[in-house]
């Protein structure tokens, strides 16, 4: 069992608040990802959970036991660091058995656990090597092995893949997902890479400026971002934003007059006033090219990025706002052309003047 309860957690350094009151529940066997831009406090939050930083106020509870002021050694958590942090003077075997040796575990038991971890991570041929004789990916696996042998209540990962090259990162990402399934373990994972967050997580925690912006499953966050920050942070290419004002209200929605020069009728159930400023968000896959006579919006094309399977066309509205449009890979967009677009109105996001999402009348299944 590993249920983590965080209540009103705060942390400041020299009068600067880094973590500003976090409430979070992490349930047994969940894969939770903390994601956010650099400096958002995600690593600090992880280190507070690990016990490597002192909490300024608030509490952390693990399985009903208060561990806020417990030393890291006694929390029963294991951490994998971005820089691997292997003990350079010990062999791979010693690196993995160090914690068990410290705990005075029986020799045969240590041997069994190390072999087991080495088997899972395919480290068997490397057990007698020193860390400097290993490649980056192998070192990372040793760091994970060091955590596995301890059979901790929660695995903590601090940007474990960011020192690896792109190909290896994809491979290790899959291995981590597999490991989570195989070990049935609770894992907390910090990353600034939203692809890692989307692909690995059961639950994503988006952090910004030391606060939680939104918590939810990856698709929930993708499809129903709670505010402009989450909407802009998740998704590649980013969601496009168009400024506008509410021009009329109806029973089942509202009419928004965009600065870009069109009026759209959107299903929205939130409270809005006529004339209030709003921002409309639309993802690249929900924009479609249309002949000028059917288009809702006329835009000028900028550069295109061809990925093979898809092409991302960057376009600019008459109100100087940038949008990205996802089209088929064999489609080519000229530079500086004028093209027409239609918007998938059911998939538009509407945000009020404070950047908070306005509830949609018809919610799509997440």
């Amino acid at each position, binding site marked *: 069992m590993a249920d983590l309860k965080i209540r009103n957690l705060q942390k400041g350094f020299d009068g600067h608040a880094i973590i500003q009151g976090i409430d979070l529940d992490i349930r047994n066997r969940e894969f939770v990802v903390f994601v956010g831009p650099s400096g958002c406090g995600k690593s600090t939050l992880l280190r507070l959970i*690990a016990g*490597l930083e002192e909490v300024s106020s608030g509490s952390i509870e693990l399985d009903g036991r208060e561990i806020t002021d417990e*030393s*890291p*050694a*006694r929390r029963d*958590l*294991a*951490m994998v*660091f*971005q*820089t691997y*942090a*292997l*003990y*350079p*003077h010990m062999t791979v075997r010693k690196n993995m058995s*160090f*914690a068990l040796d*410290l*705990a005075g575990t029986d020799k045969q038991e240590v041997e069994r656990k190390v072999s087991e971890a080495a088997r899972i991570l395919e480290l068997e041929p490397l057990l007698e090597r020193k860390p400097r004789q290993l490649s980056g990916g192998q070192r990372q696996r040793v760091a994970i092995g*060091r955590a596995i042998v*301890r059979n901790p209540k929660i695995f903590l990962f601090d940007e474990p893949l960011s020192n690896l090259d792109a190909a290896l990162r994809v491979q290790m990402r899959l291995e981590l997902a597999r490991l989570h399934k195989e070990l049935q373990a609770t894992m907390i994972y910090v990353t600034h890479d939203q692809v890692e967050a989307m692909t690995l997580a059961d639950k994503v925690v988006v952090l910004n400026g030391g606060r939680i912006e939104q918590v939810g499953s990856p698709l929930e966050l993708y499809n129903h971002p709670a505010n402009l920050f989450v909407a802009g942070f998740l998704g590649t290419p980013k969601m496009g934003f168009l400024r506008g004002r509410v021009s009329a209200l109806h029973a089942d929605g509202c009419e928004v007059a965009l600065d870009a020069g069109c009026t759209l009728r959107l299903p929205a159930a939130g409270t809005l006033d006529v004339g209030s400023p709003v921002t409309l968000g639309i993802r690249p896959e929900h924009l479609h090219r249309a002949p000028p006579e059917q288009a809702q919006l006329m835009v000028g094309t900028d550069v295109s990025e061809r990925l093979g399977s898809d092409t991302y066309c960057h376009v600019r509205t008459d109100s100087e706002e940038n949008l990205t449009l996802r089209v088929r890979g064999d489609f080519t967009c000229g530079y500086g052309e004028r093209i027409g677009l239609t918007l998938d109105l059911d998939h538009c996001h509407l945000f009020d003047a404070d950047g908070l999402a306005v509830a949609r009348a018809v919610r799509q299944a997440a």
Partner: protein
Amino acid sequence: MLTLKQSRRLTTWLVGLAAWSVALLLFFPIFWMLLTSFKTEIDAFATPPQFFFVPTLDNYLHIQERSGYFKYAWNSVTIAFGATGLGLLFAIPAAYSMAFFETRRTRGTLLWMLSTKMLPAVGVLVPIYLLAKSLGLLDTRLVLVLIYTLINMPIMVWMVYTYFKDIPREILEASRMDGAGTLQEIVRVLLPISKGGIASTVLLSLILCWNEAFWSLNLTSAKAAPLTALIASYSSPEGLFWAKLSAVSTLACAPILIFGWISQKQLVRGLSFGAVK
């Protein structure tokens, strides 16, 4: 006119010449000391100085007979190792706390520690002498161990600190997560990783202790006198005996020179204060 190639070669040659001149200039006194130690007293005084003579071991035999070289050497060894060991015992925890638990005042503390090295030793001679006297520590090895520990402490802390600074904090954090207490963290993780740095610190401290003369001359006389005091005893009372003085100096320098030669790689690393990895 010289071509570019010729002028480059000339520059290299001139730099080489300059380097060799300086090196020989620095080495010459040691060489001359070594040479003189094998001369008779008469040869040693000869003008013009003699480069060719019949070598003799008389001086060395005389020293061993009159003073008992090994007693002094043993004093030097125990004092140097004692002070170094005691120093490490304090320097390692101090450097650990400064390197890994830095506060706003850490930098200031380090500089303040170093500033104590700027005080002229003779300024505190009388109080320290009186203290040693009232504690009954005059002419004991213990008093030199204590004094040397204290005077080398700033350097030792600085050196160990710079080595510790190079060690990624995460490695220690990992050991903490693995369940190590502070002592286990230092003994099982930190020290094995920084053993190169600790070795150079030990080496430097040994050399400084071995060569220290001011306090050994003032606080010891017969029982606890180290080699530096032995040299001094040959310098004046019976007039100047150049050959014997050279022999005793050679004997005093030899162990530490040989020791330094063997470990010069560590020493260079240590003296660069962690700048060269």
